[in-house]
């Protein structure tokens, strides 16, 4: 009876989680909100377009997107952000500027019109008595796998542990001889790569145009504000806020539903105890 609603809630949470992951990683370690996140999403979607042009398997778009995101992220961190960490407010301006540069570069090359990208999976499957979009179910699985991978990297690798140390107390970490500069660099590359990957992953759901990242950026931003720096909290926030959005849209209407994430985020922020 409620299978459809359950699937809608879970898969929406999965999509939100995928989209917000890169933003959270950057925010966690660098303490900056990457306003170019939406542009990195777009970059990933255009990777899917390029894969289609080259006639490659649609799944290869994920690798192209990851590579493109990491590359652009690396150059940005190296040339732009590195000098700005002492002025956190200026990073907002810098990443927003970067957003404009990436989006306009895409527009210059591809134009403003929508582009076609081949989807790997377009069919629906019958599960639990209902017909449901197979790709959304796959996305849910990918969200879980991605979440676990990032968690493993953070908890089980040298790199991750160092990053944790930087998150907890940067000055102390620096005093212990940790190369925080490299940690920041690697984290921004990872965050940008994850954002582009997310762009390639949502491409089968949406149309590809230069500003496709904008609506997703807003939701991802709200989720990260609520979740802080924890991966577990992000999953919870995606489930609660995304779920609420789906349920309000289902039982009331979509106009109200679209407000749900923002309103809930504000309420949660108002009543959350300050931890960090």
């Amino acid at each position, binding site marked *: 009876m409620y299978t*459809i*609603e359950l699937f*809608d809630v879970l*898969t*929406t949470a999965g*999509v939100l989680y995928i989209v917000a992951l890169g933003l959270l990683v950057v925010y966690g370690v660098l303490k900056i909100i990457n306003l170019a996140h939406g542009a990195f999403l777009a970059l990933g979607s255009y990777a899917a377009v390029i894969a289609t042009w080259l006639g490659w398997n649609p799944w290869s778009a994920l690798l192209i997107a990851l590579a493109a995101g990491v590359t652009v992220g690396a150059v940005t961190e190296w040339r732009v952000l590195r000098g700005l960490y002492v002025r956190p407010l200026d990073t907002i301006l810098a990443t927003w500027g970067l957003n404009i540069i990436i989006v306009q570069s895409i527009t210059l090359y591809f*134009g*403003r*019109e*929508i*582009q*076609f990208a*081949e*989807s790997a*999976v*377009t*069919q*629906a*499957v019958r599960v639990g008595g*209902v*017909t*449901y*979009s*197979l*790709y*959304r179910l796959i996305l849910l699985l990918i969200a879980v796998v991605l979440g676990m991978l990032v968690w493993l990297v953070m908890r089980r690798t040298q790199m991750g542990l160092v990053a944790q140390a930087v998150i907890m107390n940067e000055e102390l970490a620096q005093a212990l001889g940790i190369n925080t500069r490299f940690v920041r660099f690697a984290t921004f590359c990872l965050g940008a790569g994850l954002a582009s990957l997310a762009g390639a992953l949502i491409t*089968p*759901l*949406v*149309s590809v*145009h230069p500003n*496709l990242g*904008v*609506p*997703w950026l*807003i939701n991802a931003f709200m989720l990260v504000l609520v979740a802080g720096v924890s991966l577990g909290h992000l999953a919870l926030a995606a489930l609660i806020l995304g779920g609420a*959005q*789906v349920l309000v*849209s*289902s039982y009331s*209407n*979509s*106009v109200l*539903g*679209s407000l749900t994430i923002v309103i809930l985020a504000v309420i949660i922020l108002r009543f959350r105890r300050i931890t960090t």
Partner: protein
Amino acid sequence: MRKVYGIQVLLLVLATSIPAIAPVWSQEKKPVVIAIPVGLSGVNSVVAPAVVQSAELAADELNAKGGILGRPVKVVPLDDESGPAGAVKAFNTGIHQDKADVIITMETSAARNAGAPIAERAKVPFIYTSFYEGRACGEYLFVNAWVPEQVVPPLIKFMTDEKKVKRWFAVGSDYAFGRGMIEAAKKTIKDMGGTILGEEYQPLQQSDWTAIISKIRAANPDGIIYSTSGGGPNIDFLKQLKAAGLTMPIGSLSIDELTAEAGGNAAEGVYYTGDYFTGIDNPENKRFLDAMKKKFGADLKTPNALSEQEYDGLHAYAMAVEKAGATNSDAVIKVLPSVAFKGPRGSVQMNEQHHAPLPIYLAQVQADGKTKVLKDFGLIDPGDQCPKLK
């Protein structure tokens, strides 16, 4: 005393030099200036270049025939930035600086609403070439594209009669045009004895249609009628609908040929109506498409349902001026409703209410995203748009 003397000398110099310049002016005939305020930047920038190309081809054809009343035709594209503020600037520049004899253009409704009063005050004819929500009226304002009354009822009737759709689900983007089109569709559905199982609107910036698609599935209608904002949102909705495994007939009030093609197979099977498709099978359309290809080659922007009307607009204006024998605005607007231009869409003549009965066609998106014209409904009247005119 010296000063006054100086001015007198200056006046003398000017007076003697004017006759020297004047013959140069009259040697070349003053061109007929056609201003095109169009969204070269902003949301309309996807379609604006095609509009300008349509105008350039029409101007070339007119000039090849010796211009209008023997005067050369000059088109002046101006950027209206796809919005009202830009339109005010573009209209003022076109009318006062470029001394436009006429404005012929496709714009957003907001831009048109801002520009039309300027043309009206300056008494410059304004031929609007974009389909729109209807009922924009002015003594100098003419429209040669469709209003909802012309495209919505044929589509609903076709789906009811041929596709046996009785129980409908209506979906729209939450903005004036989207809601207006759905209202028009609901009215026809009720007139045809159909029922509306559900009606849902999605905010413009939302690209995830999950909740609405689940509602459609729960309602299980015979068919879907939808109207999103133009371009991308059509593909967002159709891609997700297809992925969800919903296969009922779909009628679209917002898709266009270019969007359908960019969507690949996302829009496969979707029905829609309009006054212009590149696939219209008549000699005028073939000639138009060939001439466009020849003139612009690799730079050609595919002619479409928002750009072809510009071509018709220029030709209709030229016919009106020839008939009136002058570019004098009041003479031109008097004869404009009496000229018919047989162009790529078929024969189009605007009426006393400054709107045009139009040939309307039914089309369906094919598996490769290309649009196939299925049926010609013949001329369809726009109904009472501006009863106060005349």
